């Protein structure tokens, strides 16, 4: 497979920026809102947005179980910010009824870096990629990871990028920078998985 088809979960969030970044990283990118659309992709990005909203909409429109099934079966996934929260096996401080897809053995803390006034940009050293411009917006961090989870980056002593098998997640938003190396890494993961 030369050109993988990668979906972006389009319930809410910065979907457009991910579609552009994936296309720039040589994938065919398309929005995914329905189970039948999910069935047609080789990989999936879960964008930044409001994790409570994305979780609610996924449950409401019957996407949560299909997402869990496909991720359990090895579908390559990449989550940024709210997407990282959706891929966590456990949220430290969930809103009542807030569900995740899971897939990465980690515990995350939502809005851990603070409110919007504390949102920031900083250079982050990502293992295997190099220094990237990290845009952190009301960003979560990873409190702790399981034995199988690889830590790819830290900022200020907190874990901000992880990988476990075919699942990748970052607290920050590479889709907002025009630097497509994180998306290229994910496209390579999708190619390798198929």
């Amino acid at each position, binding site marked *: 497979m030369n050109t993988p088809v990668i979906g972006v979960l389009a319930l809410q969030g*910065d979907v457009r920026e991910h579609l552009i970044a994936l296309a720039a990283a040589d994938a065919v990118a398309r929005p995914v*809102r329905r189970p039948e659309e999910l069935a047609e992709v080789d990989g999936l990005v879960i964008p930044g947005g409001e994790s409570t*909203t994305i979780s609610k909409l996924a449950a409401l429109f019957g996407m949560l179980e299909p997402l869990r099934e496909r991720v359990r079966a090895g579908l390559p996934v990449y989550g940024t910010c709210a997407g990282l929260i959706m891929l966590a096996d456990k949220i430290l401080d969930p809103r009542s009824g807030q569900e995740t897809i899971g897939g990465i053995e980690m515990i995350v803390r939502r809005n851990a870096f603070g409110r919007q006034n504390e949102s920031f940009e900083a250079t982050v050293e990502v293992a295997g990629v190099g220094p990237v411009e990290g845009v952190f917006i009301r960003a979560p961090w990873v409190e702790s990871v399981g034995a199988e989870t690889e830590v790819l980056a830290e900022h200020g002593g907190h874990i901000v990028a992880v990988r476990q098998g075919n699942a990748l997640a970052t607290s920050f938003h590479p889709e*907002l920078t025009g630097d497509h190396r994180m998306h290229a890494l994910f496209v390579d993961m999708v190619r390798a998985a198929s």
Partner: protein
Amino acid sequence: MSTTPSSTPQSDSPAIGTARVKRGMAEQLKGGVIMDVVNAEQAKIAEDAGAVAVMALERVPADIRKDGGVARMSDPNMIEEIIGAVSIPVMAKSRIGHFVEAQVLQSLGVDYIDESEVLTPADEVNHSDKFAFTTPFVCGATNLGEALRRIAEGAAMIRSKGEAGTGNVVEAVRHLRQIKNEIAKLRGFDNNELYAAAKELRAPYELVKEVSELGKLPVVLFSAGGVATPADAALMRQLGAEGVFVGSGIFKSGDPAKRAAAIVKATTFFDDPKIIADASRNLGEAMVGINCDTLPETERYANRGW
């Protein structure tokens, strides 16, 4: 794509309040509904319904209209209660040009400031200098020139003004169509024409050129003013709004929790009439609404701002 050039030097020290962080925050709200709430209880209802953010204010626009008088920034206690009650972002309104109200809102830790025509303007010439703040601003616009003037002052997000507190979507449609039509027109201009276009729009040439190249605003564009039903929200999205503010339409209706959830569904599946139909069933009474053509000019909020 509308990536913002970083003003940050490449270093390990974090930079706050950059254009990318401010505009990027609005990118995260896309596809979502931002709801007006007047207390913590309403804020929780909004969050449970799937709102991406809430706008904390003392009176919804429909009540501001009814009560008359001067409408100002809300009580800090009330804003802090709402911040404490929900985990989604909290926005609050300052009067146009009242940069001290904006300073107060920033100190309270609100996530976005709406420099809003719904409140009584404090300055009839100048808007606030929004670059002076770490907290990002959203501003209303009725046309492209107005949107670009606000962006030139530092706004990180634009919304249509519509006619708030009327439950009538007609003005929001007018403003959004106007902005989209003017962008489409710029798209066809060559470089020679952009200087005159900038003059006509009364907007900085650099921004006019950027819009001409991007085919969209360099910041996120939402709709606001008069959305009362799921179909209204979907209409605004089909017309090109990237998300929707709902003011009086939810908590002035018969069953706010149900209507709020329905508007969220219709905003996500704005192009699926079956889902919009299902979302529209048995919602109880919508807010009563006001016909905008019977509103005297002096009571039109959209005329505020310059």
